[in-house]
């Protein structure tokens, strides 16, 4: 359900979209969508397969041609210049890094510093410090001198995460960032995101793992290119909406202090 966004709401939000319409391959995937995501929070975007989650995220990140207005921290991206955009928003996509198999992990993460470097400038001390910090936080500093192609799926994903973190951008958009990660490293990622949010950053992630998604601060439910619900993850209305979006085939239950999603019992 989309509501008309008022101006104050837009300027207070980290990421906002108005009348967003995106077509892929001639087919409209998203039509007339309004969205406002607050700053300093972690929002998870969930929905059934083919709902348009990745499309929405890419449109918000300015990576797809779209109609309508998208604003980052209240500003229009095109007013910022390419490097300004790169410093404001960091993107981590799915499965794109096949050609980088020859690059060393350290060099891959250093690429994240591109928006901060001059065209021909060599990496500076702050760049190296940012890279080291990012790699330590994702636990891949030990194999910084190994080529990406030699790493396992989980190790590679951690390097790519470090690359996204090295940008040190306030807005962090991630599409399926937990691919190949085993549960301990998924837990690490969770802490990472929380730490980033705690320092004032904004995280938006597309997740198909609903349990992880329910660890976020807020949830955006998408189906067929439309927003069905947007709200806090501990709000029962959100839980009911979640179950509804998935055709009542899942059930949200409380365990200790958090929420989990279980397959619904047959009888329902």
């Amino acid at each position, binding site marked *: 359900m989309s509501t008309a966004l008022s101006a104050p709401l837009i300027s207070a939000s980290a990421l906002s979209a108005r009348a967003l319409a995106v077509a892929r391959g001639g087919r409209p995937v998203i039509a007339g969508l309004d969205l406002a995501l607050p700053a300093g929070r972690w929002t998870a975007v969930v929905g059934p397969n083919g709902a348009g989650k990745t499309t929405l995220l*890419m449109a918000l*990140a*300015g*990576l797809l041609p779209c109609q309508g207005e998208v604003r980052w921290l209240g500003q229009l991206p095109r007013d910022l210049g*390419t*490097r300004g*955009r*790169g*410093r404001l*928003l*960091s*993107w*981590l*996509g799915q499965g*794109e*890094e*096949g*050609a*980088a198999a*020859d*690059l*060393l992990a*350290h*060099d*891959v993460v250093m*690429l*994240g510093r*591109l*928006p901060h*470097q001059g*065209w*021909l400038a060599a990496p500076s001390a702050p760049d190296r410090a940012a890279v080291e910090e990012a790699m330590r936080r994702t636990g891949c500093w030990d194999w910084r*001198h190994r*080529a990406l192609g030699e790493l396992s799926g989980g190790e590679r994903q951690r390097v*790519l995460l470090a*690359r996204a973190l090295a*940008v040190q951008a306030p807005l962090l958009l991630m599409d399926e960032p937990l691919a190949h990660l085993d549960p301990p490293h998924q837990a690490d990622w969770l802490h990472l995101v929380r730490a980033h949010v705690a320092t004032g950053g904004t995280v938006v992630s597309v997740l198909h793992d609903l349990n992880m998604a329910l660890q976020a601060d807020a949830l955006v439910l998408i189906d067929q290119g439309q927003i069905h619900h947007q709200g806090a993850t501990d709000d029962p209305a959100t839980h009911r909406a979640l179950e509804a979006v998935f055709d009542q085939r899942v059930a949200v239950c409380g365990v200790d202090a958090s929420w989990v999603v279980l397959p619904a019992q047959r009888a329902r």
Partner: protein
Amino acid sequence: MNAIPGRSPWLLAGLLVLAGLALVALGLAVGSTGWHWPWSADAPDTGQAAILWEIRLPRSLGAWLAGALLGLAGAVAQGLFRNPLADPYLLGSASGASLGVAVLLAATGLPSAATDWLPQLGITGAAFAGALGGVLLTLALARGVQQTLRLLLAGVIVGVVLGALSSLLLLRLPEVMRTLQGFMLGSTGFLGWSAVQVLALSLVPALVVALALARALDALALGEATALSLGVPLGPARGLLVAVMALATGAAVAQVGLVAFVGLVAPHLVRLAARPTHRALLPLSALAGGALLLAADVASRWVLAPQELPVGVLTAVLGGGYLLWLMHRRPL
């Protein structure tokens, strides 16, 4: 750049520079009489100094420069298309060049005054014009550089069609066949100082522009979306990279013909020896390509002196052989 000993790009660069210098020295010693050190007592004396200076030295330098251009273009092609099998002839430059040469040879035989300026153009000019024409045709067919796959497909189509046109021309005028065949197999035989100048003047700007875009190439390896998000201006970057490829390939092909394999193999040789980012890969590929083509040129003069083997055959043998050996020693 990384700092691992044994895998350092600097070490590799040093090795390649040394190899290049050694090969130039060898190039001075090898000629139609086989191998003689120029200053040894038993060197044949007739016009030796003139031969060294006018023939062997520019030929060796020219071969190195052409190889460097091809190696650079190959590294750019593989980075731009994110495909390890890409070579600089992908965008129709090779078939365009051979069609240009075929048209020139065909027209030279015709007595009509309308084509009087064509012989002035020479094979060099015709090949260069043809190569650029082929790339422009590809760009037109792909409607710009926006989509990489489209560019690749257009390049393949243009290559096939222009190649067919060359063959048609050959059928009508078989007397040009031998010359055209010589062009297509590659030949360093007539590289003089003017050729060296043209090649050097092409290499320097190509290298500078490519190095400026080295970061863009690295970012592209992570995917187009990621590169865009990192602030890489994809459209202008791709356009400039295609221009570098076209000019470097066109300049090299115009002087030495269609030498196979150098552009494809030189970046791989570098990657198997070190794991560089493009900032190092680009100049290293140029060094490796130069050494490869010069080695092939020296061998082509030496093996059957005073006859010559086509240099394209030897680049395939040398480059392919070395690549095989490297693959055997290290996992890919």
